[in-house]
């Protein structure tokens, strides 16, 4: 007690906070720890995002604000040619892109996870092989497949002709009907390892007694899968859906590499990421800043909103299981 006065400042603080309670630092110490990250994050991430919201409510002439615009930029995007057409088309393509990728990726990923679950030798190699494309830059994947699918010198059509399917050797990326499905397939090729790994981990976490119990009760393999395994995979399916949704609606590099910034041929692969880039930096004209910012805000509200709804939906499904 008497010695308390002789303790140095940090010791007094330590004594005051005592065991079990967290240390109360001095402001100067706190500033050294926190300020660098706070500064970097606020200037380069938070400030631009807040500015995008702010910019979207002003009328612009080049880089000059000429007055408050209210929701005019938003109205222009939804109602003025060519944006009205391009926005909905890009949105529809993103929706198809997401639906197609999910359908292929989830079913194939789940099938491979189930087949590999009790697979013996070679399991690790197969898992590695399926996940390898996921390590490659989406931009590289896009360029690689645009070469492979080339109608003149591409190995894909050469292979199809070699096995006698000459009529299948189409200009895959040059035809407005096949271009988007091909982009979806290439995207699924790249990402299929991700749901497979997540499902494998989830399967490994299901207690063996559950399957045992289902078998004892006389359930067929399909019934056991449908009633026991699948419901227990709900959390993994939720994670895959939400992350795939966010990834697909932000897609840029893959589509840019396969079909340029206009989503060729004839805009048949145009997506929101490309449209945003074009409005902001290529063909936006004097109103580029306001309109591209409005588009950014719309994309954010949609992506964030749907992700939140989906997350809470899957949480509720999970709770029902317990």
């Amino acid at each position, binding site marked *: 007690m008497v010695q308390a006065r002789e303790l140095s400042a940090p010791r007094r603080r330590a004594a005051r906070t005592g065991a079990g309670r967290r240390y109360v630092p001095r402001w100067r110490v*706190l500033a050294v720890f926190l300020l660098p990250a706070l500064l970097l994050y606020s200037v380069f991430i938070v400030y631009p995002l807040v500015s995008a919201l702010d910019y979207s409510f002003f009328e612009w002439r080049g880089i000059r604000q000429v007055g408050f615009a209210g929701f005019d930029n938003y109205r222009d995007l939804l109602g003025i040619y060519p944006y009205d057409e391009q926005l909905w088309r890009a949105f529809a393509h993103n929706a198809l892109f997401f639906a197609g990728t999910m359908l292929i990726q989830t079913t194939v990923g789940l099938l491979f996870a189930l087949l590999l679950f009790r697979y013996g030798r070679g399991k690790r190699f197969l898992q590695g092989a399926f996940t390898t494309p996921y*390590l490659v830059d989406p931009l590289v994947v896009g360029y690689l497949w645009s070469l492979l699918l080339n109608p003149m010198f591409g*190995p894909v059509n050469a292979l199809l002709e070699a096995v006698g399917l000459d009529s299948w050797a189409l200009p895959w990326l040059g035809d407005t009907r096949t271009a988007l499905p091909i982009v979806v397939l290439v995207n699924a090729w790249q990402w299929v390892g991700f749901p497979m790994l997540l499902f494998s981990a989830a399967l490994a976490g299901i207690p063996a007694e559950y399957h045992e119990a289902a078998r004892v009760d006389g359930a067929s393999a399909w019934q056991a899968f449908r009633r026991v395994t699948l419901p227990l995979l709900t959390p993994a399916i939720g994670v895959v859906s939400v992350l795939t949704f966010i990834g697909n609606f932000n897609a840029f590099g893959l589509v840019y590499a396969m079909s340029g910034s206009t989503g060729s041929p004839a805009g048949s692969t145009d997506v929101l990421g490309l449209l*945003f880039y074009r409005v902001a*930096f290529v063909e936006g004209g004097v109103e580029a800043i306001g309109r591209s*910012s409005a588009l950014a805000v719309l994309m*954010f509200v949609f992506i964030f909103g749907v992700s939140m709804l989906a997350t809470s939906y899957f949480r509720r499904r999970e709770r029902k299981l317990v």
Partner: protein
Amino acid sequence: MRAGRRAPGRVAVHLLLWGYAVVALLPLVIMVLNSLRPTGEIFTAPLGLPASPTLHSYRQVWTEASFSTYFLNSLTVTCGAVLLGTVVSALAAYPLARYDFFGNRVLGAYFLAGLMLPIRLGLVPIFYLMDSMGLIDSLLGLTLLYAASGVPFCVFVLSAFYRSLPGELDEAARIDGAGEFRIFGRIMLPLVRPALASVMLFQFVPLWHEFLYPLVLLRSDEKFTIPRGLSQFFGEYTTDWSALFAGLVLATAPLFVLFVLATKQIIAGLTAGMSK
């Protein structure tokens, strides 16, 4: 009897799995093989093996198409950003996890929000911000931006690790009279080292692949990162397929090397966090 009944099914499973392994790997194998063949050979036989493998295209791409410059730029920007981002986050996560001060929770939520915000949507304001700071077409500008984009994730992961360390550690050091920075540098930081390694690796991959920012913020060829350079290169060398394949291999190889070298480190980092 059972095994007999299942045999055809077994064969189908093997065929399906190994067949898909071919589908997953063959495009990458073709990429490597075709980079070793001259363009004329690729055009006459799109599916052939290299008759006499040559590294000519690699030499060409590396020097003529300035991939050596792109590579160095990517390395500088990515490593610089990962280091800076991790250092500032390691500092910031510590008080958030272990100190008691006014605004702790709010500040934590502020950093966490960055995990959910699509930061690319701030692209236009970022462009004008960089412009006003003279950081257009600058590797420093790109480094700062990349570093900032990693902060939310790093702070989130590292504060969880700091929190998992026992409270007696720093209390004992404080009683012994150690200063706060000494406690941080000598006791806390070494204990979260495995987490630091995985956090760095997880930042590295998306930054190495980032394309939209360099597309908008970089102007001159000598500043291009690999993805930005690659898009330029695909416009210029459209008919030289051998070179195109070699460029794709060069863009991909560094990550494969990194993953082969670092897989153990990632697993160690993740499990170190879980066993606590």
